[in-house]
């Protein structure tokens, strides 16, 4: 197996992009990544595209074939990867495997989703199609609903409080306001969403006990990156190469009801363990993390399941400021899904792109984790039934 490096990254601002088609977004992000790597007119050997909903939302299939053509990367191998909200992470993983195996040298990975094409309740229905079609979906369950049921149990078992969730939302929207790629650019205050009696309208329940500001927005967006063997990086690019030091992926039961302990996100734990083993690193070696906070509760639960904090301590760490920029372990400095947005197929790629920027030390001071060397991402599919975790490391030249 060869060491694999990320040599180019690109993203377009997430949000509502009525003027762009899904293919436009994927193409813009891809060109940015190719240009960032400095590949010029060179081709790539293969292209992997993470996307969940083109078939449902755009009535379009074979989007990888369309993208490779649009980018004039013919005759590169191309395929789309659908793995729910972990499609982006899965696409990156397949790209890494292809390069690591020695079969391909230069691989482009893109992830994108156009969700604002439909109304909010059509989008909610689209996302709910990942639930079990016979024993969950017909009841009207939604992903926020799954998260609500999980949150109730987490609160009862670990003493998680609404105040902890509110702090995650405030922290991530504050960072999002600084991020030019973020969907949500608005800061919120504890008074406005929690303490004031007026917060009943500002921040109503969405899926009890979760509220409106506990959930990520529905977004359009795309991100892309270029992979190559580490040994070739210096020849291909002037960028500081970022090594894919390890990844892990694990699955769990399709339905929440069949988990022995529904508060135990086994797939997160296992995916992270695999990634740490491969990278020969420990949770305490990580300097910056992008966790899948589709709901505020998930940032806290994932921070515990990957091993940053003991169970029940993640929420306290948020309140103590440990996960803020400048804290012991900054989490979701990009604003996370909560503020950057969650175009489902783009998210897993965008998380890696954000960590690459951190490890290349290219971000402005108000968003850069000083001297970050190692970063981690968690891309959480289904309700934790398919999780992809990456550990990335800066390679000093």
């Amino acid at each position, binding site marked *: 197996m060869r060491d694999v490096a990320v040599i180019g990254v690109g993203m377009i601002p997430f*949000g509502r992009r*009525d003027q762009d088609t899904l293919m436009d977004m994927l193409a813009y992000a891809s060109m940015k990544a190719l240009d960032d790597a400095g590949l010029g007119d060179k081709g790539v050997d293969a292209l992997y595209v993470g996307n969940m909903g083109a078939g449902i939302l755009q009535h379009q299939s074979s989007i990888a074939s369309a993208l490779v053509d649009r980018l004039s990367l013919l005759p590169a191998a191309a395929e789309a990867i659908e793995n729910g909200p972990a499609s982006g992470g899965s696409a990156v993983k397949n790209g890494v495997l292809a390069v690591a195996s020695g079969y391909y040298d230069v691989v482009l990975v893109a992830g994108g989703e156009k969700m604002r094409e439909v109304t909010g309740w059509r989008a909610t229905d689209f996302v709910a199609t990942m639930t079990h079609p016979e024993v969950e979906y017909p009841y009207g369950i939604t992903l926020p609903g799954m998260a609500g049921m999980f949150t109730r149990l987490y609160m009862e078992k670990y003493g998680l409080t609404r105040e902890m969730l509110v702090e995650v939302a405030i922290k991530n929207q504050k960072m999002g306001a600084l991020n030019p790629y973020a969907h949500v650019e*608005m800061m919120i*205050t504890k008074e*406005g969403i929690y303490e004031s009696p007026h917060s009943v309208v*500002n921040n109503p329940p969405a899926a009890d006990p979760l509220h409106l500001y506990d959930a990520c927005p529905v977004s359009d967006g795309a991100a892309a990156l270029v992979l190559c063997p580490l040994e070739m990086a210096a020849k291909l690019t002037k960028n500081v190469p970022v090594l894919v030091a390890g990844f892990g992926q694990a699955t769990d039961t399709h339905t929440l009801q069949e988990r022995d302990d529904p508060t135990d996100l086994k797939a997160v734990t296992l995916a992270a363990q695999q990634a740490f083993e491969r990278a020969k690193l420990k949770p305490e070696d990580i300097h910056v993390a992008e966790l899948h906070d589709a709901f505020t509760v998930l940032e806290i639960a994932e921070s515990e399941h990957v091993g940053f904090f003991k169970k029940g301590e993640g929420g306290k760490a948020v309140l103590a400021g440990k996960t803020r920029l400048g804290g012991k372990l900054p989490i979701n400095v990009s604003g996370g899904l909560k503020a950057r947005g969650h175009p489902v197929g783009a998210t897993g790629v965008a998380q890696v792109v954000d960590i690459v920027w951190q490890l290349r030390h290219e971000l402005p001071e108000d968003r850069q984790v000083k001297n970050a060397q190692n970063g981690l991402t968690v891309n959480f599919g289904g309700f934790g039934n398919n999780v992809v975790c990456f550990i990335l490391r800066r390679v000093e030249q």
Partner: protein
Amino acid sequence: MAVDMELESVLRPPEFPQAPYPPKVITLANGKRMVVREVTRADVPQLLKSVHPTLFIDRDYYNVVGARVYAELIAWQYYRVQNEYVLVGQVDGLVAGIVNGRLYSPKVGMSLHTLAIDRGLRIGAHLFAAKMEHHIEYLNQDEVLIVAESPIGFRRWMIEYGLEPTTIPHELGGAPSYKLTRELYFKSKSRLVVGDRPVPQDLMDVAQQDLTVATEKAIREKIAGLKGR
């Protein structure tokens, strides 16, 4: 323009007595304070500036709502609508949203429009609630007839308030009206209607003295949210 009052007395619809809306202040999600108050006909020229950019935005039916609000404001300014009222939400003086309605009869209200100019802060939800509060609690009406011109409006008003469907054609285009009754209003009031009274004098002074509007470009970017590559 010169007004021929003799002719005006024929052209202007007769009006019922109409109670004022007492201003209130709402703390928004971003911690800023929005003053909600009734404006006068003299404020119309300034308000039109904040509505104008919406005429050209087809997202979420802003053009449909914006064009109608624009016309309703002018018609109100020149006394061509019976018993109309206009409420605005202002943050630091800046217009964040406009709602209007009118009295169809002393006991029946006709909700006209809800136009949120700033987005993402539930301005529309707060202002629609203020409008219902005005009809039921201050204008002392028994019911309000409502239609939605956008899917967001339908979801927000018809479902959140549990409005009753009727076969009464609404004066905005004739679609069957939905009805808010006193009973429905008070059932939902605690979760939908908020605000503090009286408004502190300093906030009220800013709202009254600085009825300001954002630039056309800022409003269009805020609503259309257009993002570059």
